[in-house]
């Protein structure tokens, strides 16, 4: 039955003969692990294409949607992190295995006549792999991709003559936006794969024409004697190598839980961008050159490397495949590799040694976790990835505070004019510090209100006064008994000479402390701090009458109240 179906198809397609000719290749000198790299690369290419197609099922190439869709597929879709991780780590694997492939070909002298063209095709494929990496890095539209790619297109912009035009053609316009991402996407998923498939077909066809370059240490007779068929002898070694690489990929993927995803791209922030590891040599190298030299190196280095590789088969024309007789040529490749590896290592060591970078890196990581948690919980507003932060409870209050209040209340000690409002504002500790030293720079030292004498009560009496003031905030953990004792001390002692603590009395020497720090007090105070209940004519803080709507005022007050229980 099965054979009947197979016969039917064979009669119409001739697939058996096709398959046989594909598999019936003789491997001169026998199957070897040295020959596996091309097959492993083909396997990785298929894996990249498969995972890529699946990623496209959830990915949305637009400046407002890209990050959100990647966060969604990575953090919410079943096995999404796994698929994306395979694709991202698979790209790294391709770079590594390409390097090994190039190394094997170089050592075996497989670029030599008559295989020069296939070497050139291979070098072009290597360039394609890097183009894939460059375009793919931007697609998540996260901070790293966004800023690192800015550098790449910026380099293009420094080119002589048509640099500006080249940059605008790459990024599709005068700046990064929707068109940048649609362009990079189209290149990454249509243009580059089409070129890659074409070159792969050509590479394999040329390879089939000229076959493996056999080991140089065996003579003709020995090569013939050891010859084995491609199927299954070489294929078996190939699949073992594929399985080995695949296993490493899977392990790395689980260990890293997929590929990293930074916070959404935000042009308004500073970001310490780093390129993918395989671009590190160039990234590091550029640090050593400035001005016109920087341009020359940035654009020249890839041209030189490419040029050397392309020229190799035409320069090394000697008849021998023995590496010992081709040492100068191999040395050039080895030096190039050593320089790249060295630069990469220095780059990573510099980052590891830089406290600033580590700090920025930690902040970026925090920010990424927060953005992804918010995206998962609430979804991302249509304004774009970075707008996800606006969904955080308390976001608006903090934003208003940072915009309108922080200058005087949270700036550096030397610049600050009003009392400090930071984490712990109006906590017991804060009130205690304030009472002990109201004229400190932290409090009223640089205001017209610098007139109160420090409170000198000791022990429980002092604690009672602190508790009384603390109780005004409406906090839930007030010790009412202690606060009651504070009230007696307040009334009997010198506090009440200047202050009331009843919310009603006006025009005392000092502000009325009633409800001090409670939400309704803050609401009114922010709008009119010069009210006679509080600072009267000594007030220096601008009144914010009509500045905020009710919702904004609520958010701002919530933020201030929330500071009380926030750890410093």
């Amino acid at each position: 039955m099965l054979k009947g179906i197979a016969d039917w198809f064979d009669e119409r397609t001739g697939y058996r003969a096709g398959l046989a000719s594909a598999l019936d290749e003789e491997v001169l000198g026998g199957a070897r692990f040295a020959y596996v790299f091309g097959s492993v690369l083909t396997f990785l290419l298929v894996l990249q294409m498969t995972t890529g197609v699946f990623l496209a099922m959830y990915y949305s190439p637009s400046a407002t949607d890209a990050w959100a869709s990647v966060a969604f597929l990575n953090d919410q879709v079943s096995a999404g992190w796994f698929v994306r991780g395979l694709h991202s780590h698979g790209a790294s694997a391709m770079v590594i295995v390409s390097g090994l492939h190039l190394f094997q070909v170089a050592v075996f002298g497989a670029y030599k006549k008559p295989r020069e063209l296939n070497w050139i095709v291979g070098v072009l494929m290597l360039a394609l792999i890097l183009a894939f990496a460059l375009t793919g890095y931007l697609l998540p539209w996260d901070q790293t991709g966004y800023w690192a790619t800015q550098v790449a297109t910026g380099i293009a912009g420094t080119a002589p003559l048509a640099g500006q035009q080249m940059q605008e053609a790459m990024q599709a316009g005068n700046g990064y936006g929707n068109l940048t991402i649609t362009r990079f996407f189209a290149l990454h998923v249509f243009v580059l794969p089409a070129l890659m498939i074409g070159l792969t077909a050509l590479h394999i066809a040329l390879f089939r024409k000229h076959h493996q370059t056999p080991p140089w240490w065996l003579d003709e007779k020995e090569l013939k004697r050891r010859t084995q068929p491609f199927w299954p002898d070489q294929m078996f070694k190939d699949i073992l190598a594929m399985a080995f690489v695949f296993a490493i990929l899977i392990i790395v993927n689980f260990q890293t839980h997929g590929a990293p995803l930074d916070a959404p791209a935000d042009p308004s922030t500073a970001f310490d961008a780093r390129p993918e590891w395989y671009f590190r040599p160039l990234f590091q190298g550029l640090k050593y050159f400035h001005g016109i030299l920087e341009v020359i190196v940035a654009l020249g280095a890839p041209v030189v490397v490419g040029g050397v590789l392309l020229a190799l088969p035409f320069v090394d024309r000697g008849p021998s495949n023995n590496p010992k007789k081709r040492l100068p040529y191999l040395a050039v490749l080895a030096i190039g590799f050593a320089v790249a590896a060295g630069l990469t290592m220095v780059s990573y060591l510099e980052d590891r040694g830089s406290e600033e970078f580590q700090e920025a890196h930690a902040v970026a990581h925090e920010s990424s976790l927060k953005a992804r948690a918010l995206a998962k919980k609430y979804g991302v507003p249509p304004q774009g990835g970075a707008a996800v932060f606006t969904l955080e409870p308390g976001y608006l209050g903090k934003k208003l505070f940072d915009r309108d209040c922080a200058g005087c209340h949270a700036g550096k000690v030397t610049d600050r004019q009003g009392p400090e409002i930071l984490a712990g504002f109006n906590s017991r500790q804060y009130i205690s510090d304030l009472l002990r030293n109201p004229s400190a720079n932290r409090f009223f030292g640089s205001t017209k209100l610098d007139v109160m004498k420090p409170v000198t009560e000791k022990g429980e009496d002092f604690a009672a006064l602190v508790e009384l003031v603390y109780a005004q905030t409406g906090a839930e953990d007030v010790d009412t008994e202690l606060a009651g004792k504070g009230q007696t001390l307040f009334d009997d002692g010198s506090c009440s000479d200047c202050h009331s603590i009843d919310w009603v009395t006006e025009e005392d020497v000092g502000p009325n402390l009633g409800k001090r720090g409670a939400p309704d007090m803050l609401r009114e105070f922010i709008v009119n701090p010069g009210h006679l209940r509080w600072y009267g004519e000594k007030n220096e803080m601008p009144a914010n009458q009509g500045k905020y709507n009710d919702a904004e005022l609520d958010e701002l007050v919530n933020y201030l109240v929330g500071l009380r229980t926030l750890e410093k």
Partner: protein
Amino acid sequence: MADKNTDEGRRRFMKLATFGIGGIMGAITAIPLVRYFLHPVGSPVVTTPDTPIDIAAESEIIAGAAPIRLPIVANGVRDAWNRADNVAVGSCWVSKSESGEITAFTSVCPHLGCSVSYSDKNEDFRCPCHNSAFALDGKKKDDGPAKRGLDPLEVTLEDGRVKVTYKRFRNDISAREPV
């Protein structure tokens, strides 16, 4: 070539092992890919909050008049990765009886999901796609392929405003099952 028999045994093993290893690798890749592909099946990817949505002032709806189509504009609409406000998620046909009772039908046809119109001539609802017809009280008329009447949406009145709770129902079955 040494011993022909051992060579053949070795090659047989290599062929089987190649298929075996390839199969395992394929499975390790395919299983997550299938799960990934099927993720949206049965999961609420597009959702509208089930809180009542303001559609009009009560006074705008005239007792005894022909039904009017009102858009349903929701906040907090989730669509895969997005969360958006002011999104038109659908529309409903609203009318007020002489006794003042307000009813709202979703304009989604219960047959295959086209948008139902009101026919002034016939004084009933008609679906332009397959000619299903529904009476003003939403009941299915004889002609047309729909298997049930129009789906009513829950109406609530609050401070003179009319609100509906937006829902979608499964197509082309006689029972009314929310999606």
